[in-house]
């Protein structure tokens, strides 16, 4: 058992990026797709599909922290047999998603820099109109993130430009807005961002 753990640990340490960098910061903006499933105690579960407009940043070296914040445009909502477009039915449809996590950078695979982290997730949704009961929720949970980044050509921002494919999967279990009426929320988000990376090589 101990030996097995050691082997796994050794393999993991091989994967972790061994390029020594004191500090880097990456910033990107992008778009993507988000799916949310929220379960409630008293009623059928809710599903939302949305279009995120997101900022994604990473700070640090091999060990760092990442932050993703997104404002989302709800595209479709579903509850049981009911399917509709929130922006068509509600006069205001707001959605917000944030993910903050310690993050570990791994070795490059081909030209792609990989990183991953575990951290806190926050989401907030509010649909309101004068006709319907406002539907809103705020929830906090934990999630895992992964990202792959590759440099763009030298013409982009003097070689600092990069293309990223990012994703996080989170489970929200702390009901911030309804006193425990939410039983859980599962959020999956995929982003494609374009940004720049500035780093200091040791």
């Amino acid at each position, binding site marked *: 058992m101990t030996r097995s753990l050691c082997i796994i640990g050794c393999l993991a340490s091989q994967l972790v990026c061994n390029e020594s960098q004191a500090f880097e910061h990456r910033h990107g903006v992008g778009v993507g797709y988000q799916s949310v499933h929220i379960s409630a105690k008293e009623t059928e579960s809710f599903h939302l599909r949305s279009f995120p407009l997101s900022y994604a940043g990473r700070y640090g070296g091999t060990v760092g922290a990442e932050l993703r914040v997104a404002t989302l445009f709800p595209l479709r909502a579903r509850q049981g047999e*009911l399917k509709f477009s929130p922006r068509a039915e509600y006069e205001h449809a707001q959605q917000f998603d944030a993910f903050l996590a310690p993050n570990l950078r791994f070795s490059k695979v081909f030209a792609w820099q990989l990183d991953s982290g575990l951290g806190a997730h926050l989401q907030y949704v509010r649909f309101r109109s*004068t006709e319907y*009961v406002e*539907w*809103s929720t705020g929830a906090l949970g934990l999630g895992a993130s992964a990202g792959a980044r590759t440099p763009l050509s030298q013409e982009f921002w003097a070689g600092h430009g990069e293309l990223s494919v990012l994703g996080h999967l989170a489970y929200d279990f702390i009901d911030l807005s*309804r*006193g425990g009426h939410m039983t859980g929320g599962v959020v999956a988000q995929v982003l494609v961002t374009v940004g720049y990376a500035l780093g200091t090589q040791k």
Partner: protein
Amino acid sequence: MTVARRLVTAGTACLFLGVACNLGPFPDFLERLDPLDPVEGQVKAWILAEEQQTQVLVLSESGRFLHSVIGRDTAVVLETGAFSISGKQLVMQSEVRYEFPQESGAVSNRTGAQSEQINREKRRDALREGERLTIEGWGTFVSTADYVSGLDFSTSTGRGCLLKYIQLSIRTAQSRIRNFGGGGTVIYHNNRSSFSGFLSGEQTIVVENLLSPDTTISSRDFQDFPEVRLDGRIVSHVSTAGDGSLEDSISFRILGATSETGPGGGGAGGAVSSDPSARPVLASGRLVYGPDDAIQIGQGDVVGGSYELVLTTPTSSGDIFPWQFLDDLDLRPCSVFADQ
């Protein structure tokens, strides 16, 4: 407590538009704020004052009912739906149930007014004898027209009983405002929402300035009970701790019955016209909450000040009622109930 307490819920409204507070159960997607649609045709209303509660039953010619049970502590349980007369039985098919509890503790933790769709049938023997309606298991109601006509507006006791009757209507109306009285009132932040009266008109609610919330409830030609027509607005100004005051006033008109009578007879649905223009105004005036000697709010509850009842019809008068007056909605000493 009562009106003001409900108005100041936004005073402790949660920051960030609802995050970290209790907005209550999830509504369904596209759930209507109030499924109640105004009734058409003639109506007849009945009232029964008991030791712990007062019941008001409004029956419409079109077969719709509103049954409001207002506790002496001002809590409300309201049901609406369809009714029919089957032989000697009054058959009530409840469709929506509203509950507006009397709660304590931090306003942000209170549930406030909630509603649920139900499908429940109740059958009770009912017998109408003129302006009396006896319903098995509930008791003998008198018509609200009789109650109103039995009020002596020349005495302060009679005017106080009028005020309590108006308050029954105000409380019944407030019970339909989803989340009202709880932290969930924040859903009306910059979101004016309207609710129809059972007979006519509408009331609206809007919350402004979350960090120093002002909650405004406006009524326009609002009628749940056939004798009480409400206009005007109540505004609360409170801190986030729920401390502050009320201002503005609600105008009321108390409408009498016309000579026109409906089917009458032995059925519970015997009706009088609900058309306000065809009915005499027995009394009119204003219920003033402030700013002079305004109702004071402390941590979400009324803790001081006075209600001013200004009567302009049938005679001019002004009465000051201490803030505790509307905390106990006991109508047994009033009008026809005092004679029983």
